[in-house]
């Protein structure tokens, strides 16, 4: 691992300034960042720890809740207000990663984690998403990749993002007032190989939840009973009689699904056809749990 500077700013302004310097990267629990740095993926000369900014509260906000970006995933899973009003979110928080990782990982870090594609994470390969010419997954082994053709077929990994998207959560950043969580994510393009819309110096500060839905649920499939990224995850929420569905694990970005035709636009790739069956089953599962 290349040496890097560790910076723990005391204010959001200091943090933004530090993040604008060189190849600085923001850090929550570091559970994803450190493995990236260890493999030389998007290397950084400094790491800016956001855990000193007082963003570690879950508090009432308007009709809903405001969740600080550095709230730990385990604390989110344990929170009574979250469990009481936002079952899908509590469920996703308790299913993500492993107990140890949940105790370290933060909400902001979970939402902003990089794709888990094993080519993207390969220290000796520079894939398209990392600025190279080739999406190795498309010509190689993409058994766990997406259902949607594109320049990059990696999938959105954040369990938390699915219920937040289905429930209409908004994101606040150090630079921007609250905006819909869908706008935190972007499809990587030829000119900009990132999956997040965060600009220089910008970091997530809070997640704002609207009033609790009447009902919500999260269904996910993993590869073993603990510590497995979701092969796919589907969140369903019903508010005012309207049902929203969102999925991860099937597309570059957390994706809203049409409850009438959830597989629309997700034809599957050579090795991922099985995920269509999985997704359809998880959609039923989530809807049945509402």
């Amino acid at each position, binding site marked *: *691992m*290349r*040496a890097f500077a560790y910076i723990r700013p005391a204010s959001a302004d200091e943090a933004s300034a530090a993040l604008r310097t060189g190849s600085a990267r923001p850090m929550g629990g570091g559970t994803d960042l450190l*493995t990236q740095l260890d493999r030389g993926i998007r290397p950084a000369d400094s790491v800016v720890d956001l855990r000193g900014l007082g963003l570690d509260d879950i508090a009432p906000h308007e009709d809903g809740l405001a969740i600080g970006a550095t709230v730990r995933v385990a604390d989110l899973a344990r929170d009574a207000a979250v469990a009481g009003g936002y079952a899908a979110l509590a469920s996703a928080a308790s299913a993500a990663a*492993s107990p140890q990782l949940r105790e370290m990982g933060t909400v902001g870090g979970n939402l902003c984690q990089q794709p*888990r594609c*094993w*080519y993207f*994470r*390969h*220290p*000796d*390969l520079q894939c398209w998403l990392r600025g190279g010419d080739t999406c*190795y997954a498309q*010509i*190689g*082994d993409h*058994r*766990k990749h997406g259902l949607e053709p594109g320049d990059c077929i990696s999938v959105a990994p954040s369990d938390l993002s699915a219920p937040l998207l289905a429930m209409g959560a908004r994101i606040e950043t150090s630079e921007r007032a609250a905006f819909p969580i869908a706008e935190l994510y972007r499809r990587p393009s030829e000119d900009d190989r990132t999956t997040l819309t965060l600009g220089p110096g910008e970091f997530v500060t809070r997640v704002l939840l609207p009033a609790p839905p009447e009902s919500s649920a999260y269904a996910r*499939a*993993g*590869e*073993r*009973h*603990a*510590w*497995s990224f979701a*092969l796919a995850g589907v969140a369903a929420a019903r508010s005012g009689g309207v049902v929203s569905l969102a999925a991860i694990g099937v597309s570059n970005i957390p994706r809203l699904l049409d409850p009438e035709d959830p597989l629309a636009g997700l034809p599957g790739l050579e090795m991922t*056809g*099985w995920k*269509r*069956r*999985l997704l359809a*089953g*998880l959609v*039923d*599962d989530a809807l049945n749990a509402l």
Partner: protein
Amino acid sequence: MSPRLVKSEAVVEGRTEERWSLVEDDHTPEYPDGPSPAPIGVAAQRLTAHARLTGSARYTSDIQLPGMLQAAILRSPFANARLTAIDAAAARAVPGVRAVLTPADGFAPGGSAVLTDAPAYAGAPVAAVAADDRDALAAGLAALAPEYEELPFVAGIDEALGRQDFTADPSEYERGDPDAGMREAAASVSLELRAPAQMHNCMESHCAVAAWQGDELTTWISTQGMFAIQAELADAFDLDLERVRVICEYMGGGFGSKDQAGAEGLLAAGLARITSRPVSVVLSRREENLDAGYRAPAQFTLEVGAAADGTLTAIDASAVIGMGRGGWTPPALEPVKSVYRCANVRAAVLPVRQNIGSPRAFRAPGVMEGVWALENAIDELAAALDIDPLELRRRNHADGDQATGRPYSSKNLLACYDRAAELAGWADRDSLKADGGRIRRGMGCASQIWWGGGGPPAYAEARIGKDGRPVLSVGMQDLGTGTITACAIIAAERLGVPVEDVRVHAGDTRLAGHGPFSGGSMTLASMAPAVRAAAHEVREQLLALASDRFEIAAGDLTLEEGEIRSVDGTLREPLTEVTGKLANAWIRGGGSRGPNPSGIAVNTFGCQIAQVAVDTVTGMVTVERVVAVHDVGRIVNPMGARSQVMGGILQGIGFALTEERVVDPTTGTSVNPGLEDYKVPTIADLPEVVCEFVNVPDPRLPTGVRGLGEPPIVPTAGAIGNALAQALGVRLHEAPYTPRRVLEALGG
């Protein structure tokens, strides 16, 4: 004592080795008939538990020596390449770098080059750097700036087979007339099955620390065979054996992969000699997955025929084994030859070469995956014949070793079947079956065969001094299986002391005479008689001294609970009443392992029954329960034995459900060389395990002990495969049974 030089045979993971060993006459009485005398057979916590749990246990990577350097290996990122440039001078110029080795330096201890300029697999060692600390090391490695010319490579087994490039000559075993047997068959099945490359992923990676004092080399290394490493290092550095000391006090798993000094051991010693400083080499998790061995993947083709009553008439099997760069070909078709009675058998093994690192032995190498394949076929046959799968196995029970015609020393497999069926509720297994709902359940069984008879040479020394606490020195390392505790139990029985009062010294080539490699399930079967003999010799002397002291005939005295007692109950004195008079003298005893009787086959047997639940939405297979009944001779420590069974089953579950190295077809490199993507089971994946032992001492072996390290992993995956087939009504032909494969089988 009149030592004799004897030649004996030992079967190690399917290889029959002839060995000369020096054994002493052993007058130790055998155990009485009936239940084992306590503390043999009484559950005992492992003596090292506290040290392991509190972190005071010192593993190889914990060793810190004054002035010690850190070293690491630069490895090829390419599946096949030629090194065209490397900047050793730049690396040497990095502050803190103390030594750099590249292929040009010709580092070839023992005659074979450790570093190569023609790396033929991703992960092949190209260069090595030793430095003061990790930062200097990383800078030194970066400064090497290697350049490669990429070359074509072969990664897939099919492609390798197409090229007919073999790492050893293909072999074909035949007995009887398989073609005629197949013609006679009333029913036959034909299956093709693919077994994955399973990685060891020991929690403790391969590591070594080496230090020279003059021309004496001390190496701390995580190893299953300290004497083998001693010999390898002595040969590599041209030293007398006694000038090489190998220490392995604690280890965090080996599973067969720690059977050689490896690049880490040779480079630690070599760099330590060059720098005159101690050197530590600890492989990363990634290196562990690229260049530290694996269970060789195999593609099986099996055709099995039987008469209408289920009697097997023929087995025709082949296995194409992905051997990477080569090495020992695992006995993947041994189960086809030996598990069931069948007069007509053909077994062809084709070990193919690929641009991948080499496999190494992995807990029941060959046999575990071979049993998995065979047991899938036997269940298919049972369905074709409409015979209960367990009943079909009973009907084809093999009474002796069919390849050699030798009788088994002891075999209680039928008792295993009966007890496992009872514990699992086998008779009602059809009631588990689907009602067409989301969760479908099934139950399947599989048989176990393995060796595990042990043999010479194995030596133990016992002594007792004034404090009355026995000390045992054994020439073995504890792989983590609890053999140290088992040895203490065996000595404690002879000396009448609590198990925890026995201090066991192990894991150091200087401590005692040669002991066994911790492999082939032979450690305890080899050590137990030596330990018992050594402790018995001490006992005899203690009783003689006590006889003088208390004026009671030695034959009327016994040792129990730390006391010397007369059989009539009139005398009860603490052991220290005798040993306390010793001042600084010791009572000593020695023991050695004698050979097993010739002309017999020594094997272990067992049966496991697995119950699985399949979620047809997520494709997730959950093993709910495994019943394991094994026949491994006398059980010394039921707690340790149970723990071996749990571990074997969990590792078998890994093979069956989650573990699989994935090699990228485009680049020939592994895409899951770490614990995030290569999924070993977690504790949450452990099912309820119901574990019993037949516990019949082997009448032909001293102490009656056979091995247990490997047996429990052997049948697990086969039982799971069969349970899954019952649950789904369709058989999966490739392991692991991941959600993807399950959903694809369901028509996804």
